[in-house]
């Protein structure tokens, strides 16, 4: 187990380095940030000075080595635009995004798994078919459009819920959270379901097909032949087997929710990391873009590791050994 974690961490370092190289070269190719940052009226001397101050007069490989030297000590550079630590900017915005992604995932799990199970148990009933039809909508409606419609209906027409911002936040261990105030929850009430929609549909489909497959297995018939109640057969024998793929997908999707919350954050003006990224890309603020992507990759790696460990707890056939990995 320990060996597994160590080896996985070493692999992660390789991924992070490769990632940073790609982003560095990629952003370099897009354009010159100086053209955006500097007042067009500035003279050549001011321009030269600004370029030198940001270290952009150096060749790319040298800029990268400078970045790498800083990265080893945890310094991912300073934002070109805000002149503060890039990592600091991201960490400041992170709670908002994590909160949104976490709420969305919770909604997806609480709705998706029971509905999927129901649809799997009653594939021919009207209720089961309705759930499946609904899941197709969840899959195919674009997130931004649903977001706009939610704002139209609940904020503009009915005036029930606020359409933008986080509302009042409360600090918990120094981290500002909206989840703990009524006003904050009201502000979450639209963006969280909006972000959850796709995942609700995904979990419904996954759970349903898992349930339908598991119900045909001999171990389900054997469990019933033992005289177990229906509840125990479904709740223990079937669910335990479905959970294996579901947990994997939940893990991967949680990473994706954090990374791609951008659309929802833009629609609801949610002050999270996604909005920061969009702004940074518009301004070619390379340190922030690089830092953001490195943070996201690290999150993905951490989530995958957690999923692997959880997986071995759910499926006894998977053991995290030195050989298997």
């Amino acid at each position: 187990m320990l060996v597994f974690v160590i080896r996985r961490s070493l692999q992660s370092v390789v991924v992070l380095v490769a990632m940073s190289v790609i982003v560095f070269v990629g952003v370099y190719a897009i354009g010159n940030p100086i053209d955006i940052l500097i007042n067009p009226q500035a003279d050549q001397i001011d321009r030269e000075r600004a370029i030198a101050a940001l270290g952009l007069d150096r060749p790319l490989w040298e800029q990268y080595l400078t970045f790498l030297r800083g990265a080893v000590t945890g310094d991912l550079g300073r934002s070109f635009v805000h002149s503060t630590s890039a990592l600091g900017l991201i960490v400041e915005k992170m709670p908002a995004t994590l909160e949104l992604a976490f709420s969305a995932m919770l909604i997806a799990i609480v709705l998706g798994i029971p509905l999927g199970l129901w649809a799997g148990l009653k594939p021919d009933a009207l209720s089961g078919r309705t759930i499946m039809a609904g899941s197709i909508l969840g899959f195919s409606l674009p997130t931004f459009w649903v977001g706009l419609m939610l704002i139209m209906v609940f904020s503009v027409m009915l005036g029930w819920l606020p359409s933008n911002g986080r509302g009042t936040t409360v600090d918990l261990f120094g981290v500002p959270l909206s989840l703990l105030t009524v006003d904050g929850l009201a502000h979450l009430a639209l963006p969280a379901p909006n972000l959850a929609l796709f995942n609700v549909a995904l979990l419904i489909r996954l759970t349903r097909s898992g349930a339908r497959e598991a119900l045909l297995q001999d171990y389900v018939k054997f469990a019933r032949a033992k005289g177990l109640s229906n509840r125990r057969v479904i709740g223990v024998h079937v669910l335990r087997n479905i959970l294996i793929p579901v947990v994997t997908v939940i893990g991967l999707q949680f990473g994706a929710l954090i990374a791609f919350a951008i659309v929802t954050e833009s629609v609801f003006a949610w002050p999270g990391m996604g909005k920061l990224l969009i702004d940074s890309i518009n301004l070619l603020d390379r340190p922030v873009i690089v830092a953001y992507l490195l943070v996201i990759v690290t999150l993905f790696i951490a989530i995958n590791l957690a999923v692997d460990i959880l997986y071995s707890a759910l499926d006894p056939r998977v053991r995290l050994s030195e050989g298997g990995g």
Partner: protein
Amino acid sequence: MTPPLLTVEGLRTHFFTRAGVVKAVDDVSFTLARGEVMGLVGESGSGKSITGYSIMGLVDPPGRVVAGSIRLDGRELTTLDPESMRKLRGNRVAMIFQDPMMTLNPVLRIDRQMTEAILAHDDVGERVALGRARDALERVGIPSPDERLKAWPHQFSGGMRQRVAIAIALLNEPDLIIADEPTTALDVTIQGQILHEVQKLARETGTALVWITHDLSVVAGLADRVCVMYAGRIVEQGTTAQVLDTPAHPYTQGLLDSVPSRNARGARLKQIPGMTPSLIGLAPGCAFRERCARADADCAETPAMSVDGNDPGRGVRCHHPIVPWTQPPR
């Protein structure tokens, strides 16, 4: 004479599919005494497994028991409410399945899969249940049962898994065990061991057995009586010696001929011509007539089970039985 443990009368289990009604079990009747071992023999699709599921109340939709009666100890099972039926399952009637690789849930530990079968029926503590599970494992010949209780199914071999399944079936000391081809998926040496073991255990505990199989050699060594099924009907029944030594139905004869034997080494194996008929929209009449050398115009009419006048346990469903038949007194 003591009343039989299990009486099945005119059982019909049909599957209502889009393609039509499949009469998987069509008028099956037999009785089973306490402690008796009955072999239920037939090809794949002859309805033998569905007969077993019908007794267990485990026929899945679109299947349904449409007619007939199943009485266990005088209690009618076909009209029993689901909760009473659940209390019976695994308690008075247990079942063992064909593929031991598939019957144990891969993600639950053995101790859990065993104790839940006890706790579903008896209001005992976890510790008592665990003790009983341990004893059951020991009884079916699993070495170091205490350790094995904490193992996962994938850590067992096929034969060992089937022993665990048998141990689970025996947990509540049922009156009847329905064994659905439990040795088919095992290799021959293990098959022999399991057969021996089950026979011994059934005798010790007085448990009656319905042993579903397509393998006549298994039946020969194990069963007291044999029922041969074809296309959803029992076509012949009798003691094992009667059915195997003097078969009356041409189908039974065909089955016996297709078993390789030492006496006819080098000779070409006989086989039954044709294939099992589709059970969808099966025409009335003897289902075997298309493949039968003795068939004639009479066979277009469904033969009734004709019981030997001298022996109520012996019967054949054929207009032209191979052996001379004493007609029952009218």
